[in-house]
């Protein structure tokens, strides 16, 4: 099955059995392709005794730990075909992931993203406010997760402004003008969860006390990047939404789950508050003791599969996040596919012993 064939299908239209057939066909094909074209990947498969004849279901396809992309350069295309290298947002001193994209995979990422997001905001482009600063997308060869997210979502904007300047200050005048110009129209806002809270919400709150308010009741906010940084602020998801609503009247807010290692296949949060898997990808939760598949409702380590990656062997990955599958094909929002929630990062338990390398790796 080619990716074009998958692209022709509506993102949340397939029932379980049809989707499984599609994924099994496409992902076994990708496994074969990467095995043939990425020597390291082939070696890893051999070391774990992989036999393609035994794979009857996409859930049996081996997964690589996401952190492997920080340790090894994994490519399934010649170097000269690489048009973009995406990097993960590692904190200082930490190794960063390198994800190599050729033209085809990169363009499929974008097409997929458009198909998924259109299901939530409609297919026409709308005025867009990016809740970040312009400098984050300056280097177009090396994309950070934040930069990639912004550029990815920018295709939905007809006219775009950055809400923050490079010193992370809210540009009140520019935003007022923008909102005035598009008054009464649907407006898309996009940003990373922590940035939205720290540099947008808090500033709006302060301005409100000074009598300056913005009306974003027609806005749709899409935010991602996880809640980890907000733990320190002790903000729950519910609170995040209600406080934002209070301060600027925004009603439509969608979180999403995604990662640079599988750009394009994002998991959007629906109107019922659930993250959804589209037909382009899937989530499987696994038990820490033996990686067996969890039941619905049981917390496990999240494995993600994506039908997109052809230029790097990232079609089946074990994340370091924990999540819970809430159900399949029966979310009240009407979308088919699995819906789930992300609980957080796997706890990095303190281990005994004299070696301090382990701790250093995580700090």
């Amino acid at each position, binding site marked *: 099955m080619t990716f074009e064939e998958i692209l022709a299908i509506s993102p949340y239209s397939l029932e379980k059995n049809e989707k499984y057939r599609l994924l099994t066909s496409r992902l076994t094909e990708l496994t074969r392709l990467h095995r043939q074209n990425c020597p390291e990947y*082939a070696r890893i498969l051999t*070391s774990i005794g992989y036999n393609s004849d035994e794979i009857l279901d996409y859930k049996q396809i081996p997964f*690589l730990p996401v952190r*492997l992309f920080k340790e090894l350069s994994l490519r399934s295309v010649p170097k000269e075909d690489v048009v973009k290298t995406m990097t993960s947002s590692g904190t200082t001193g930490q190794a960063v992931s390198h994800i190599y994209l050729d033209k085809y995979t990169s363009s499929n990422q974008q097409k997929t993203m458009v198909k998924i997001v259109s299901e939530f905001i409609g297919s026409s482009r709308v005025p867009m406010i990016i809740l970040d600063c312009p400098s984050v997308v300056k280097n177009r060869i090396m994309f950070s997760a934040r930069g990639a997210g912004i550029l990815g979502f920018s295709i939905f904007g007809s006219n775009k402004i950055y809400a923050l300047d490079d010193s992370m200050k809210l540009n009140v005048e520019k935003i007022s003008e923008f909102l005035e110009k598009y008054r009464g129209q649907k407006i898309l806002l996009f940003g990373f969860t922590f940035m939205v809270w720290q540099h947008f919400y808090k500033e709006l709150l302060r301005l409100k006390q000074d009598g300056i308010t913005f009306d974003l009741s027609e806005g749709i906010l899409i935010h991602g990047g996880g809640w980890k940084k907000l733990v320190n602020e002790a903000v729950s998801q519910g609170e995040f939404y209600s406080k934002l609503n209070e301060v600027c009247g925004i009603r439509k807010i969608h979180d999403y789950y995604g990662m640079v290692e599988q750009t394009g296949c994002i998991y959007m949060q629906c109107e019922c508050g659930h993250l959804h898997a589209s037909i382009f990808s899937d989530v499987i939760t696994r038990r820490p*003791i033996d990686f067996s598949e969890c039941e619905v409702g049981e917390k496990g*380590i999240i494995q993600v599969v994506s039908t997109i990656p052809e230029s790097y062997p990232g079609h089946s990955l074990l994340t370091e996040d924990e999540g819970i599958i809430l159900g399949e094909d029966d979310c009240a929002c009407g979308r088919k596919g699995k819906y789930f929630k992300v609980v957080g990062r796997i706890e990095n338990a303190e281990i005994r012993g004299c*070696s*301090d*390398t382990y701790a*250093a790796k995580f700090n």
Partner: protein
Amino acid sequence: MQQEFDNVTFLVGSKDILMQMEHIPVLPIFSDKVREFLAILSDELLHDKQAKQFGDIMAYAFWIRGAAIEKVYTKYVSETHRIGRGIAFQIAPSNIPVQFAISMTYAIISGNISVVRVSRKNFRQVDIICEVIKRVLTEKCTQLKPYICVLRYDHDESVTKWLSSICDIRMIWGGDNTISMIRQISIQPRCIELGFADRYSLAVINADDYLKSDFKVVAKDFYNDTYYTDQNACSSTRLIIWIGNQIEKAQKIFWDNLACEVNIKYKLSEICGSEKLLKTAICAAKHPEIREIRQNNAIVRIELPQLYDDTMDFKGNCGYFFEYATSNLESIVSLLKKDCQTVTFLGETLEDDIHKLVDLYGVRGVDRIVPLGHSIDLSFVWDGYDLPITLSRVVGNA
């Protein structure tokens, strides 16, 4: 120079005691005072309700009990005119709670004044032991009070600098990074320094002898060598060398029995499965001939068709084992490098065989050769140092 101690917490001792240390007389090795102190400390710990909850505190208390120390002492009785060097400044590791007490024991039994800096991590064991030490010093062994300080401080390099400038021995327990960071801080010209760095250890098992042993006992012993410290101590076995005729049969029984032990006793932390997955992937990308055997994530084995020079770069923990089968014990010489600390053995002639290898090849590693199950036994000889000797000086005569 007036040193500030505002950010220093004294778990044992005080600022005044610390400031006086340069003027306190050293003691002979195995002095009466210190032996008495250790015996009382042992007794108090063994009867302390809180201490009893910790296996590692009990192991330490047992190691320093009166009879045990007297036995060790007999080995050193002939060492006359041997006295401490002065102040022993020790930096305890961040991952083994009781190591600070073990280090202190080495320092004082050798006649020194002991200052230990413990990790910022708050281990219950550290608090419990320090409380008991304080009690013993106040109630029964007041004469030793000037000899012991246990401190904790945050990123305050000035304290480390000051202690380094006055000490006669500096002992650093920790990873290679910690050691090289502290090494940048200078010490007095005659000060001696011991770095207890990151090491690896391995086991050699004769399959035929194993098949004659009690499988359950061996499983327990091996568990203690490895899982008990999350297989992350220097002494933890990372690689098993199998020799003999019935290797396959022995392996099956060995791992099945270990699995029973592990499934009952070991709590695998959630990240371990993917950690091990990552190790195997990185290793396989370089050495495609390896084979991973994974029953579940608590026991992951990597079969090596040959011993690579960089095998130990891929070592893992929490139950991640390399295995290599050979008919020729000499093939393991390549592994006995500087970083190799302990070789445990199971097999009738192995102790001699390994000693012979070490001598014959003049290898740079291997500081201990002990029976399987004894890798974490406490000892006054550690990392190749006979500590009561290394940490003391002898007043020679004609």
